[in-house]
């Protein structure tokens, strides 16, 4: 069956493919990954108990903690000889979250990403300008292989060097832009600065993801770049970009590549599955991944699933644009940041008090993060350079751990509000 057929299958047909794949997956994971077996045994569920898609609810959830506890490769189901690539994203307490891919996984990823791009009308005739970062982050390489899968021409420009990117877009005739929404706006503003107008470019469509963005931002991107801007969703724990994608016809939500990734919405408090249409935490089970399959991964993203047919003819369920998080994770310039990671860095700096606050702002189109640190007697000095070295040290360590440049602001003791119970660690002034 080719993918056009799969994407337009009547729901029962699609669901039988999903169930078949789910059953195989659960058997394989139970037999090959000790931590999964232990959790299933504890929950009193056997692979044979999965008789329908509704039985999914009996399987235990997987969380970022499970990934951390089994760092780096403990949840892989194949020998490392069969793993051809790893990617990693930042974890909650310093250790990154590591994911692996077999050769088949890489192919499957290219196919889902290719299908996602096709939903935005990308074809082999396109010149794809890929500004997602190449490296451990899944964005750059994930998008790259997807565009190649379609036979499009890829410009692997990665992030940064914005003026050069504009020259390349103009001279090479880029038709498709892949970038975080904030970087797309940065490109637009830089174009205005250097006197390049949207008419000088051949850009037609922008595919933006890896960070939350509002409808207002979408309008701004579309107006400033003269393109149609669509949303893409993905996360490394599931595969990377290519988990869900807005088609050009969709007025609401992103099609989930459901033949590979099974979505659920659960109540964020009771964790009971919720019916279509209700908002809750988005949970994914991978159906076909080999090296690093994942069962019921709690994304902490808030969304809804929309099963009503879409104008494009696809029967794939749609997930609403992610509207929030169930935890305190921040996304700063496309990078996941947990306040606990910043705390981890501060605790490692001798003499620094555990009182801190993160202040997030959007200056122009770029997110900025300031870390406010109280100056205790232990770190105070009568010499400016000592305090400046302290702020630099914290800055460098945060950059090393998180990959995000932040400002470090020293403040007087007791100026950071002490709240009863959960401290308010984050002041997010961004209007998303």
């Amino acid at each position, binding site marked *: 069956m080719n993918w056009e057929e799969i994407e337009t299958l009547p729901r029962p047909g699609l669901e039988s493919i999903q169930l078949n794949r789910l059953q195989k997956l659960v058997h394989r994971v139970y037999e090959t990954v000790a931590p999964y077996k232990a959790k299933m045994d504890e929950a009193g569920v056997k692979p044979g108990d999965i008789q329908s898609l509704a039985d999914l609810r009996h399987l235990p959830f997987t969380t970022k903690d499970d990934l951390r506890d089994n760092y780096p490769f403990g949840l892989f189901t194949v020998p490392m000889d069969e793993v051809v690539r790893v990617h990693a994203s930042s974890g909650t307490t310093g250790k990154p979250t590591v994911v692996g891919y077999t050769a088949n996984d890489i192919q499957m990823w290219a196919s889902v990403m290719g299908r996602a791009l096709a939903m935005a009308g990308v074809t082999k005739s396109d010149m794809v300008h890929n500004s997602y970062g190449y490296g451990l982050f899944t964005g750059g390489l994930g998008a790259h292989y997807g565009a190649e899968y379609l036979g499009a021409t890829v410009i692997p420009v990665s992030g940064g060097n914005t003026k050069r990117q504009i020259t390349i877009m103009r001279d090479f005739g880029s038709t498709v832009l892949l970038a975080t929404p904030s970087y797309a706006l940065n490109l637009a503003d830089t174009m205005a600065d250097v006197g390049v107008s949207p008419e000088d470019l051949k850009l037609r469509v922008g595919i933006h993801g890896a960070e939350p963005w509002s409808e207002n931002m979408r309008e701004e991107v579309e107006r400033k770049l003269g393109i149609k801007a669509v949303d893409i969703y993905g996360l490394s724990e599931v595969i990377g970009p290519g988990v869900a994608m807005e088609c050009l016809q969709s007025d609401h939500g992103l099609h989930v590549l459901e033949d590979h990734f099974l979505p659920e919405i659960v109540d964020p408090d009771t964790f009971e599955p919720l019916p279509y249409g209700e908002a809750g935490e988005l949970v994914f089970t991978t159906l076909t991944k080999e090296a690093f399959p994942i069962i019921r991964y709690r994304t902490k993203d808030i969304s809804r699933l929309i099963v009503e047919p879409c104008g494009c003819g696809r029967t794939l369920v749609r997930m609403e644009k992610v509207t929030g998080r169930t935890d305190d994770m921040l996304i700063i310039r496309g990078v996941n940041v947990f306040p606990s990671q910043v705390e981890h860095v501060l605790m490692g700096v001798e003499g620094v008090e555990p009182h801190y606050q993160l202040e997030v702002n959007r200056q122009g189109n770029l997110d900025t993060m300031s870390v406010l640190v109280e100056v*205790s007697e232990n770190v105070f000095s009568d010499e*400016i350079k000592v305090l400046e070295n302290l702020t630099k040290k914290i800055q460098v360590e945060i950059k090393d751990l998180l990959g995000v440049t932040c400002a470090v602001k020293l403040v007087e003791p*007791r100026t950071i509000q002490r709240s009863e119970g959960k401290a308010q660690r984050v002041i997010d002034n961004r209007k998303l």
Partner: protein
Amino acid sequence: MRVEQIAVFLENKSGRLAEITGVLADNNINIRALSVADTADFGILRLIVDKVDDAKKVLKENGFTVGKTNVIAVEVPDRIGGLATVLKTAEAEGLNVEYMYAFVNKSGENAVLIFRFDDMDKAIAALQKAQFTILSGDQVCAL
């Protein structure tokens, strides 16, 4: 031969300096000399006062971060070149000035230079050898 100095962390917000000097005044503490070092984000107030321990205590009680360090007070005649002769001696010994400030005493004849050197022991020895007048904390406060 060393003078105790207190240093106070200052966030860049209005009224902080007034608050500190107010606290000191309320507690009958006399400021003999002071300097403020500042960056774009914060400042450090350095003070020489008559009652060092009291000053430190009351400022801490009022929520300030306070440190105590030693500096050297050198008395020189208040005339052209007074500071230059001290710095020449320091330079000849390979000493680095971390920071300094100065004030003129009441009679107006002498200036008092407050120094923080990278190597305080070496600085004291060098300045004594060159026969500069180094003041004690009590002497500074008695001026």
